[in-house]
């Protein structure tokens, strides 16, 4: 049998149900693994060991007495949480000094859902500060290393969530994705990462970065696990007005006997550009061949406005961030400067001392594009180009069931290697368009660059078609076999 910390959700559930392992044993195995390996990897910011063990003991009591209820699909299974999702009584720093010492007064809806399903919230995961970054290097607290090569980044912004899954420091984790923050680190750390459609999962209690883009999603060791976890996360929430009352399909059922036979997979020609790393290209082409061999029909499609997606994103996301981050003013919570002698200085200095350089850069950028005289030229225009990008996807999905593309232009790069902001931003070249269109997308492990560095392949499906997305992903995963 494999070690307990190597398990995915499905295997852990099976052991718990057969009483071959207890939730307490699972949690203790993860704590021991964390103590042995996380010094090198650095995925976790904090881990409430006592709280996790107590929650596990409660789950074990239920399992020993009445057994799990139909609702308790994750009973006793521990999950790591990205450090911008509120869990009552735990820290929530967003990897920023401005929230050092903050203790969440309430549970985010996704956490409430996890707890209702019996899950144990075990550990807070490092991230790029306020989810701004593609390498987790903008964290104010620590460096997270790629578990497959410690000299490299885990990706970001959900780098801790990805490194924990890829490094077997967690059974599964929650990440968030605004422009690629689940998918790119999933690709770098060999895990499954799903960015749900805009509105599929509640953001109540999730620190906002760019509110027209942010989504919470699962980061797991298999597509089956992603289906189990997404089932618990998805659905309408009256605390988040962007979650429509669209029924949530049974995702585990949707992927049963998944096949690519007769599935029409679109290949957007704009995604196969110069500058794509040779190994990424080779692995993506191999994944396309795997799909063809498994019966998929490959159709070339065009998303003509792709070349404008980065520009639209780097106007829209900072604009929204500059508004969302206005709440960090040193008044009600978070860091307050001791150098303030007026309310104005209290704002400007608390923010100056609390925010890191990338966050400041985006606040300046966002404030600029929203400022009088520039609004129409940048923000107003970007929203219109966003419509054209969205229409590109609508047109493509008129012809195909899903799209297949690379996730990131390269495998994991070296820590400290990328210094120029725009070069860092280009990591999200292939993930941003789907975010702007609001559709769902996943990164599925596809191979190893140079036999060593993980590389994922991206599937993209229409809005609220997570069942299709997971079905295609599962069928690919089966056809691909063990990596």
């Amino acid at each position, binding site marked *: 049998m494999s070690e307990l910390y190597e398990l995915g959700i499905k295997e852990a559930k099976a052991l718990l149900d057969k009483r071959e392992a207890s939730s307490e044993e699972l949690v203790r195995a993860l704590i021991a693994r964390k103590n042995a390996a996380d010094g090198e990897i650095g995925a976790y910011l904090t881990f409430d060991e006592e709280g996790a063990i107590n929650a596990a003991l409660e789950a074990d009591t239920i399992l020993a007495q009445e057994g799990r209820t139909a609702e308790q699909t994750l009973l006793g299974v521990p999950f790591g949480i990205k450090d911008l999702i509120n869990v009552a009584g735990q820290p929530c720093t967003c990897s920023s000094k401005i929230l050092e010492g903050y203790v969440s007064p309430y549970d985010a809806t996704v956490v409430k859902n996890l707890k209702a399903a019996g899950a144990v919230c075990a550990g807070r995961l490092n991230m790029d500060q306020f989810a701004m970054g593609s390498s987790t290097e903008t964290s104010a607290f620590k460096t997270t290393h790629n578990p497959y090569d410690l000299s490299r980044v885990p990706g970001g912004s959900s780098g801790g969530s990805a490194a924990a899954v890829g490094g077997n420091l967690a059974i599964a984790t929650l990440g968030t994705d605004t422009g690629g923050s689940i998918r790119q680190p999933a690709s770098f750390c060999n895990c499954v990462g799903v960015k749900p459609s805009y509105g599929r999962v509640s953001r109540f209690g999730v620190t906002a970065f760019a509110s027209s883009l942010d989504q919470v999603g699962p980061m797991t060791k298999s597509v089956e696990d992603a289906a189990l976890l997404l089932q618990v996360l998805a659905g309408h929430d009256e605390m988040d007005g*962007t979650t429509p009352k669209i029924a949530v399909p049974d995702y585990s059922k949707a992927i049963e006997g998944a096949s690519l036979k007769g599935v029409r997979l679109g290949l957007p020609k704009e995604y196969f550009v110069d500058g794509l790393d040779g190994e990424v290209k080779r692995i993506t082409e191999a994944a396309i061949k795997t799909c063809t061999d498994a019966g998929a029909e490959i159709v070339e499609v065009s998303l003509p406005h792709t070349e404008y997606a980065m520009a639209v994103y*780097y106007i829209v996301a900072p604009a929204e961030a500059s508004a969302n981050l206005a709440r960090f003013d040193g008044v009600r919570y978070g860091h307050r400067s001791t150098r303030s002698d007026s*309310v104005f200085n209290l704002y400007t200095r608390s923010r100056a001392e609390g925010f890191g350089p990338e966050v400041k850069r985006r606040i300046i950028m966002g404030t600029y594009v929203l400022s009088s005289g520039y609004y129409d030229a*940048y923000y107003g225009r970007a929203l219109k180009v966003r419509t054209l990008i969205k229409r590109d996807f609508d047109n493509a999905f008129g012809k195909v069931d899903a799209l297949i593309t690379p996730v990131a232009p390269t495998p994991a790069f070296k820590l400290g290697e990328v210094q120029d902001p725009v070069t860092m931003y280009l990591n999200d070249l292939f993930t941003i368009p789907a975010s702007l269109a609001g559709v769902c997308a996943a990164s599925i492990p596809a191979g190893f660059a140079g036999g060593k560095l993980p590389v994922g392949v991206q599937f993209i499906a229409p809005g609220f078609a997570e069942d299709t997305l997971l079905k295609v992903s599962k069928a690919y995963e089966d056809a691909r076999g063990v990596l």
Partner: protein
Amino acid sequence: MGNDVKIDVAYVAELARLELTDEEKALFQKQMEGIVDWVAKIKEVDVEGVPPTMHGHEEVNAFREDEVRPSMERELALANAPARTGDEFKLPKIVEGAES
């Protein structure tokens, strides 16, 4: 496009209520002009008659009954306050000449 973008970083920082050091101002000035020059690419696109997209889907409003519901307990809401006095957040004096 050309590098003709000029940004008054000090002014923008003031709008954003963010104090910047001189080094940060100089660095952001340079980086920001590069980024703005880069995103100005959207000016190439013909957007005549195209409506804006604000969100990832078409839903507009979400209403519920306007009824009083319990809100967060006061102690919880104040628990993270950097400074408090009784049941209130404590702040520096705002109005000139007033008692602090």
